[in-house]
């Protein structure tokens, strides 16, 4: 093999400098979506990058459903950003009931076409994707939540197809300027954040909700970690959160002991 051309070396050097600048935040401001989850945006330089696909991973009972609904409710109510909840398991009526149990009024938002809750036909991935895109188009949605995202992987026989399909979905979100939260399940004892273990590589961001139990204490704590968020100088601190009467509240200034 011959020597590397000088030009290429210079380009690499520029690339590294740009990467360093980007890490230091020395770039034009990134457009971000405020999550509406109290305290979370502090950890994310103000919010999730617009047009990104983000995994919300967690074990049973960690508050993922409320997180997703709060994200949509806040967007519709406070930011004038319509949202779609794609429910692959629960009936839309059940989702409405959950929102009402927290004190949110989804009926008004649904009537004003600021919120849509759908349970699409799941025969083929392409049909499902089209249903989601149609729903986004119909109300001009800027926010989408899919739960459980893990079910999408059941369409495919191999990891290559899963990754390709998810990459397509990610591209669609970006094209439509829509910011997605995809809720995945973590089974007890699992090390990955999704069912195949590959969704997290395709996603632009990964937020993990968990329970912590300390060996020297009876205290159980709900915790949140921003494990990955592209183009964001995010905190890597494990922080406690609570499910309050107003929804999820993240305490960036507190610590897990």
């Amino acid at each position, binding site marked *: 093999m011959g020597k590397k051309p000088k030009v290429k070396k210079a380009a690499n050097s520029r690339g590294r400098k740009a990467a360093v600048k980007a890490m230091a935040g020395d770039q034009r401001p990134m457009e971000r979506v405020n999550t509406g989850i109290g305290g979370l945006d502090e950890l994310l330089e103000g919010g999730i990058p617009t047009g990104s696909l983000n995994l919300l991973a967690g074990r049973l009972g960690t508050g993922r459903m409320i997180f997703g609904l709060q994200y949509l409710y806040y967007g519709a109510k406070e930011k004038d950003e319509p949202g779609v909840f794609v429910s692959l398991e629960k009936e839309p009526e059940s989702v409405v009931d959950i929102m009402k149990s927290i004190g949110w009024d989804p009926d008004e938002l649904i009537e004003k076409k600021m919120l849509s809750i759908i349970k699409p036909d799941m025969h083929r991935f392409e049909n499902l994707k089209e249903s989601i895109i149609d729903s986004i188009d119909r109300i001009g949605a800027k926010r989408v939540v899919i739960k459980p995202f893990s079910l999408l992987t059941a369409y495919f026989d191999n990891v290559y197809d899963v990754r390709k399909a998810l990459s397509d979905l990610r591209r669609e979100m970006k094209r439509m300027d829509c910011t997605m939260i995809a809720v995945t399940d973590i089974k007890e004892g699992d090390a990955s954040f999704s069912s195949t273990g590959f969704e997290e590589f395709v996603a632009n961001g990964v937020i993990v909700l968990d329970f*912590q139990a*300390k060996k*020297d*204490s*009876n*205290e159980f*704590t709900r915790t949140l970690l921003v494990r990955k968020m592209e183009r964001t100088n995010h905190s890597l601190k494990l922080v*406690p959160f*609570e499910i309050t009467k107003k929804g999820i509240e993240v*305490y960036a*200034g*507190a*610590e*897990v*002991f």
Partner: protein
Amino acid sequence: MDEKKVLARLSKVKLTGGKVLLVVSQPQFYDMISVQLLRALIRNSKKKGIYVTLTRPYTKLEASLKKSGVDTAKLFFIDGTEKPGSLPENSAQVSYVEEPGALTHLSVSLTRLTASGEYGFIYLDSLSTMAMYRELDVVQRFGNYLVNKLRELEMDGVVFSLDSEKGAKAVAALKPICDEYLEF
């Protein structure tokens, strides 16, 4: 040391805003020290203060402090002494954490309260009780967290510990990062 000497030493303590005291005491001076320091903190601060009690329940503590002339209306209490599973309702003057070792919950309560900017000082009673419930490294980490929070928010703070074997190890770790160390 007798009570006169303790009082004389306490009268020299200056709380100027953003100062953290670490106080270790024999059990017989416990009441006197907390009353004197709380009076000084309330006198010096234009804001209310937060009293974290891991030792005596709120109702008894509040009555006792009031009887000793402490203006308890200037205090908000976080009580970690009640039985888990049967915590009383939070009120305008007190909130509850499950047990003295529930340090994450305590950290959340402190974060929530101090975010309002309403409070000028924190009194922690006590490091020695905390050390009975959690491992030493966790107690030390909490101590560090508390001192850093006080500095960040420019609040005064008193970290109190009874003279005990478990408390002594936590005190030794915290001593270098506090502004003043008092031993009675």
